[in-house]
């Protein structure tokens, strides 16, 4: 159905019922084939479920793109300790709004995916960690969980299988860092949302010290269709390395921004000019951020030939991330945009690691100074060097996330910085 817009080139697997209020209800969801996949999974051995997911080639949709089936197989097989599944619904990457739509429109799809995943990994408890600002979505999900309990889908005896799987909806307090998997665990445990040193990895020591796997909402939402139809079925879309479909969140200067579910490997050009109906007022494209604010900017030329798969975007010089495509036309003030992004990271840094705590704030003040017309050319070198010092030196990757937009913008739009520094010229100053 698509919401708010749909396009014929879409392959709606997860988004099939977006915009359909009846799909939110348990009855409506069952009428649309809901919980059939769960029944099928419960008839299989947990190992077979993992095998199907492995065969599908599904990769984590939260940004890193780690193979989901492989991640599940890291969970210890012995049941000496409780196992937990965490669903990361703390969607907070600037430019991303796909998980929210899953929570709002198809909460039962997510619950079904969670229960199947929990069954596959022997997890007895699933925590769905919702971003604090998602009031409506969290309410919809909480209602769906309540209905699922009442219907015997959750609880001590899932659909009469004897399996005990509980689901708890947990509302965060609204911090970007709590979307980082170990930060999420700290927050879930009631501590400051601070990422933890790895190793130990969550599969060994995770939430509450127990073996834990953490998956993104979209990843788990893709599980029921995959289980229902098989791994090979999922591979009919996408590329060899990036099988399946993906929700693309498009924002910025396009005529029809929104969520579009497309096969991976879809051309970026077609996404902008066909699916999103082109640029606003047909203004020329200037830059695209293909995967949320923490990836490198693509120039218009790079975007021209970019294929939207994990490997395709890397080839173009950036990262697919969580496929949050931010489209910027020629009226965009790149320096301002990058400064805005940097200030986001400075605001959201948890403050544990020195390079991140000090670096994000420093980069922001330098960028703001340049923006205010008080920059020098040396500042550009300083920015590149400082962000270099922020890569790979911290517990989590928040610090690393500042470097790509800053460095790529200086590399690709240096003239714009220099015009501002030397002559005070701004783009789209109006």
């Amino acid at each position: 159905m698509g919401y708010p817009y749909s396009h014929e080139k879409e392959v709606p697997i997860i988004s099939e019922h977006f915009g359909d209020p009846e799909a939110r209800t348990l009855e409506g969801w069952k009428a649309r084939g809901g919980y059939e996949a769960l029944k099928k999974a419960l008839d299989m051995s947990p190992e077979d479920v993992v095998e199907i997911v492995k065969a599908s080639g599904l990769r984590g949709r939260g940004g890193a793109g780690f193979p989901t089936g492989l991640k599940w197989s890291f969970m210890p097989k012995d049941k000496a300790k409780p196992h937990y599944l965490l669903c990361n619904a703390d969607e907070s990457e600037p430019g991303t709004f796909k998980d929210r739509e899953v929570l709002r429109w198809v909460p039962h799809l997510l619950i079904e995916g969670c229960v199947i995943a929990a069954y596959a990994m022997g997890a007895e408890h699933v925590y769905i960690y919702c971003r604090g600002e998602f009031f409506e979505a969290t309410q919809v999900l909480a209602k769906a969980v309540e209905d699922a309990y009442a219907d015997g889908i959750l609880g001590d005896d899932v659909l009469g299988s004897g399996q005990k799987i509980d689901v708890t909806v947990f509302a965060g307090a609204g911090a970007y860092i709590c979307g980082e998997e170990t930060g999420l665990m700290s927050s879930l445990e009631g501590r400051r949302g601070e990422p933890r040193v790895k190793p130990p990895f969550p599969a060994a020591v995770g939430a509450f010290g127990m073996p834990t796997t953490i998956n993104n909402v979209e990843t788990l939402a893709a599980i029921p269709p995959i289980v229902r139809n098989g791994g090979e079925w999922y591979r009919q879309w996408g590329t060899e390395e990036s099988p399946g479909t993906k929700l693309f969140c498009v924002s910025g200067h396009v005529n029809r921004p929104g969520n579009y579910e497309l096969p991976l490997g879809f051309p970026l050009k077609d996404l902008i000019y066909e699916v999103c109906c082109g640029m606003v007022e047909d203004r020329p494209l200037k830059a695209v951020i293909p995967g949320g604010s923490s990836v490198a900017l693509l120039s218009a030329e790079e975007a021209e030939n970019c294929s939207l798969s994990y490997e395709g975007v890397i080839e173009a010089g950036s990262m697919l991330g969580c496929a949050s495509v931010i489209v910027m036309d020629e009226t965009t003030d790149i320096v301002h945009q990058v400064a805005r992004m940097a200030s986001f990271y400075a605001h959201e840094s948890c403050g544990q690691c020195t390079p991140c705590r000090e670096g994000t704030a420093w980069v922001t003040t330098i960028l703001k100074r340049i923006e205010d017309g008080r920059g020098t050319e040396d500042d550009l070198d300083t920015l590149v060097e400082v962000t270099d010092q922020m890569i790979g030196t911290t517990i989590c990757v928040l610090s690393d996330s500042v470097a790509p937009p800053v460095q790529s913008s200086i590399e690709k739009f240096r003239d714009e910085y220099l015009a501002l520094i030397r002559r005070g010229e701004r783009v789209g100053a109006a």
Partner: protein
Amino acid sequence: MAKKATAKPAGVTLTIDGQELTVPVGTTLLQAAQGAGTEVPHYCYHPGLSSPAMCRLCLVEVEGAPKLLPSCTTTVSDGQVVHTQSDDATRMRQGVLEFYLLNHPLDCPICDQSGECDLQDYVFAEGREHGRGREAKRVFGRDDLGGDILFYGDRCVMCTRCVRFMNEIEEKPLLTVVERGNRAVIDTFFDEGLEKSDWAGNVVDICPVGALVSKDFLHKARAWDLEHTPSICPNCSQGCNIDLHTRDNLVHRMKPRINLEVNGHWICDYGRGRYEWLNRGDRLEVPVMNAEGRNTAMSWTTALEALKVRIGALRKSSVKAVVSPFWSNEDLGAVSRLVETLGGGSIVFRSARAEEEVVLQGYEGLARRKALAPNGQGAELLGCTRVGDDLGQGGLEDLMDHEGVVLVLGDALDDQPEDFAPNAGLVLYLGAYTSSALASVDFQLPVTTFAEQEGTFTNHAGRVQRFWPALSGPGAARPAWLVLGALVGALQGEDGPNTAEKAFDLVAQAIKSYKGLDYETIGAQGGPSGAPVPVPVPGD
């Protein structure tokens, strides 16, 4: 299937900066490097606390690892090749140090930590010559955290050692990090401050910079002007190992000295704050003899000669001695020998006692003990009996009708009347201070306090621990063991001990549980007597 039994390797062999070494399994790279003589800079790591690996200063290059690893949490593995000084590692440290200085006020000239500051040391050693920061610095200002602790937020490097100390060691979470990013700052919870802590002084010790400072020590001395002398805390029977920091012959502060078997890295606030008595100016400085109602100052030779004559005449009359548990085993042993030489008698001591122990929850075996003196155990082992009340007063009523010698060491008898021993044949006082009760005793001989002499205390668990002279005694004051030893020697026609070590040997011969102990075996960390003291390992 018979397999040759291979001996399990005793440890892990790795290479750090080209040096091959074998260390126990589970050792961290930072500890291994320390063992090899390489100090990897670090802030958040502290051997007595957990390691959050967040300061990112101790990153080292490990061959085969995709990025630099925090040496404080990475454990050794066989065949590892580690470079602490590689280009990548040093460049990274330089970068991190630059980040630290971005908002650091560089107010070293007025900072108490200056001279013993890890930030100063690391930046001098490895930092950039010129920082690139031109932005205005963040300002937090100064905050009174309660108790003896002041917080200078601008100097803080956010290592969170203080927060972890309160959480993990004292187990009273009075400190926390509020806000995030570079607005993050250490703070207390609302109106509750560190005045509720009994061990808060330790956060000043473990603060690697001048963010947490002591109000008591504020601007009192520069770190490089202070001399450090290993000693023992005199304020309870735990026997915490300390350093006395002195300048101009005054104690300026007491700092814990690491001894994992007694106090780890910590000391309590009660002990830490009670050093001023060592600086008292109203000291006995010369031997004084009271003859025909007049006190006369005299030289040691004259005084000892007169004393020998007086005391010799009273031989075979019983002796009642009152000693102070603030005096060393050597001193108390000399009292015991004198009493024996004179024909026997009793030795008592008075000692204040607290109602409760103040236990440090997170460090087994460490508490501010009830007995508020360092050597009550040593006194008891020497046959002394505790008398008096829990304020350390009273209990000397039987001196009233005693007719022999009364010998007092160290206890200034502040609570006693002037005629506390009206019938005594001779009242001899050796001490540091005088009092109204002592105004007209026969002899007042000036002796040194423990801080002015070498010696040993025996803690509550029977552990004998040495201390060294940190101050010079005033005027003619001498150690009591020297004075009493000379007296005993003169009475027996031989030489008394002329070193503290020899004085201790005489004590060790007399006490069964000190058997085999001498200054060498006791060393700087103390020697057990009786049952061995269990060794708590922090983090275990």
